[in-house]
């Protein structure tokens, strides 16, 4: 199959690769870019384990073609921490025991990262709705909600300090 050249910014770095047009973004990230943080849980957009951030939106990479990312700014869980300092959502999930097997976690983190930019001061119910595109089989969500609230508070403090 003839390949297409696609260029994007991936975790802040310019990337240019030749891909089969049918290559899903999740396979491109995991197999070509060796970014295995985002996972494949369903391949039907239901579970959210593959969630990444594209141009300021949460996107399920299992049903998104790589070629759709031409010129886009793509961020994965590997790009969350900054120079070794964990992002507030990562810190929140750690401190509030918001993960168990860890398989949904990269998707949860990327969704929380975007959700808290869209709604920096959410209620618990808003967190539940905002995170409802991401499934977790281990935690029962209660600590995930706490983790996102924890991150919201930390981000607000950071904003005040800045």
């Amino acid at each position, binding site marked *: 199959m003839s390949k297409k050249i696609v260029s994007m910014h991936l975790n802040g770095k310019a990337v240019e690769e030749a891909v089969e047009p049918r290559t899903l973004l999740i396979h491109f990230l995991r197999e070509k870019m060796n970014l295995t943080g985002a*996972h494949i*849980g369903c391949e039907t957009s239901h579970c959210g384990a593959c969630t990444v951030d594209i141009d300021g939106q949460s996107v399920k990479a299992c049903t998104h073609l790589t070629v759709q990312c031409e010129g886009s700014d793509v961020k994965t869980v590997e790009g969350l*921490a900054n120079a070794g300092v964990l992002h507030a959502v990562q810190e929140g999930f*750690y401190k509030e025991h918001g993960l168990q097997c860890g*398989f949904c976690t990269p998707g949860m983190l990327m969704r929380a990262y975007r959700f808290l930019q869209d709604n920096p001061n959410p209620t618990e119910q808003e967190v539940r709705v905002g995170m409802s595109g991401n499934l977790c089989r281990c935690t029962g969500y*209660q600590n995930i909600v706490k983790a996102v609230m924890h991150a919201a508070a930390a981000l607000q403090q950071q904003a005040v300090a800045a």
Partner: protein
Amino acid sequence: MNAPLSDREKALMGMGEPRLRKEDARFIQGKGNYVDDIKMPNMVHMDIVRSSVAHARIKRINKEAALKIPGVIAVLTAEDLKPLKLHWMPTLAGDVAAVLADEKVHFQMQEVAIVIAEDRYSAADGVEAVEVEYEELPVVIDPFEALKPDAPVLREDLAGKTEGAHGKRYHHNHIFTWDAGNKETTDAAFASAPVTVKQDMHYPRVHPCPLETCGAVASFDPIRGELTTYITSQAPHVVRTVVSMLSGIPESKVRIISPDIGGGFGNKVGIYPGYVCAIVSSIVLGRPVKWVEDRIENLSSTAFARDYHMTGELAATTDGKILALRTNVIADHGAFDACADPTKFPAGMFHIVSGSYDIPTAYCKVDGVYTNKAPGGVAYRCSFRVTEAVYLVERMVDVLAQKLGMDKAEIRAKNFIKREQFPYTSAFGFEYDSGDYQTALDKVLTAVDYKGLRAEQAAKRADPHCPTLMGIGLVTFTEVVGAGPSKICDILGVGMFDSCEIRVHPTGSAIARMGTISQGQGHQTTYAQIIATELGIPSEVIQVEEGDTNTAPYGLGTYGSRSTPVAGAAIAMAARKIHAKAKKIAAHLMEVSEADLEWEIDRFKVRGDDAKFKTMAQIAWASYNSPPPGLEPGLEAVHYYDPPNFTFPFGIYLCVVDIDKGTGETKIRRFYALDDCGTRINPMIIEGQIHGGLTEGFAVAMGQLLSFDKQGNIQGNTLMDYFLPTAVETPHWETDHTVTPSPHHPIGAKGVAESPHVGSIPTFTSAMVDAFAHLGVTHFNMPHSAYRVWQQLKAVGIAS
């Protein structure tokens, strides 16, 4: 030097501390290492051609078109595996299962052929191109139909075999009959009892559905003759033994690695055709082969749970004292008996069915049956068939209470095994280790203001304008976990012990290697806490390794809540061997007798002299460099723990539901879960496990169902249809606990992660049925989806 004792204790972060998880750093930075993350040089991909029909003869398989697709390397069928005698494989339950369909398919989505290709896209193209011609046969989906005299023969390979792995087969679709208890005394008790109740119920077919599906990366090195396989397995050592038996490769040359596992819940105990095919392909091709199933394959073919058609009966006095229990079960095992049970019990620990109650005599009987459905019968977040048993007895106690007009809490209290009766031997022969049910029940009833709830319910029932039906569910369950004593539990003849090897390094840090494997339970965190407390080494410097059969001691793995009861005990025992040696070294170093020493948190000190001590770190150094004469150097130990008994965690759960009278939609207003798992190692992790188990229980009770149409087509095998609750539907959980340690366990711990699943499911049903109890309804089957509840509302004339 002499910091306060409490500071020294805190510094260890040992048992009882809510220690944050050691494994999280990699998971929150996208650096977990799951099977699908494994990439090997020269690796190829495998995909599976699956049956489109449920029961058929295979007339022809045409590989031609598939082999022409660029990237496709090979297409293999049962015919190709036959010369290797690998087209069938043994199951954990003593049956055989087809690796690739041999002349016949027995269920929809059964493995028919495999395609190996250079990448996953070409493999998928290849699967599309393989042509299979079927001659369809009559399909049997209902196990009662399967047992009719003229039912189609499903397993032609067993023709004429009247003796199965568990005794006599009385019908061509019959697998086994298993019973326990005393039939005569139970029948006699029923014949003379003043009150009897009987209820049929179905525990539907469901699936554990961990977020990561099953998969493997097999790599055979033809030069060295060594096979390495990364696999999503909850029991890597068992896989090694089975792979060695099947392939003929010596066990010493088979290395099985369970890396990070994205949830198991029983789905990853069995050995599936996909694993075997990946291994065979690697041996044939001499290249690493990756196979990862997709979600539809996962829900359709690997590991269903439950599917028990149960009849429960209780005999009682008129004032509610239970005299006898009797149950009869038709167990639908699908096409092959691949039930994951310790082999001596084909129905697992179903005979825990007498529950938390002092029942003088009891009898249970289970008949296993073949149907045209996927094989399995795994323990979905529970000990083998305990969920089914707990559901049955808790439902029956409710049914009896309703018949007698008694309160659910009152009838339970009346029949509890009393605190002073422990250790208690049940009518089925289980010896319950410890319990204090009444204290726990009282705590819950007070916490939720049970009387107030009942008053509110009475007021709502009296008000015809109330838009909702209010139901209160109560369950007081006992689990049996920690399989198990090898005199009664084994898998393929291997006793169900578990193991731990601890090495303390010269500078006082340590590594522990285990026969279990975490799938999210946080073993790297909690196991280190046990060692920290036992040996006085800070948990921060204790590494815990699991899952690599080349380095870990042999163990039976993680399922059935056995990690803490069995492996947790092995840790304590190994640590105590080290402790005993350390004491000898300390005595030698301080030139006193061992009798003069006492242990204090992280050191041995001379009795009565706080200034004279040796810390474990000092002892570790000395153990390598200046051991006492006659004592071998080093500070390490290994322990294989064969538990003397199971453990019996228990819980009291209460749930309040409000059901919309018009739509059947249910709001879980409140769920209060009190668990007693004995000694608590890490309360933060326990609470997390309980939240997760309750949520899985909620999913099973309120929506999960794998159903089939008459042609055997599986319905709802995607996440569009199969109910996995999101954060929106999931209720808020309230947790509580009491602590009744296990007297036979070295640290008193009982295991916890499955109790919330086992206990919550009947609690939801109890609450749902309770909402209709004043209308004469005694039971309806799960799942309690809005549509089904609405049908119930219509049946009693509430909804139109």
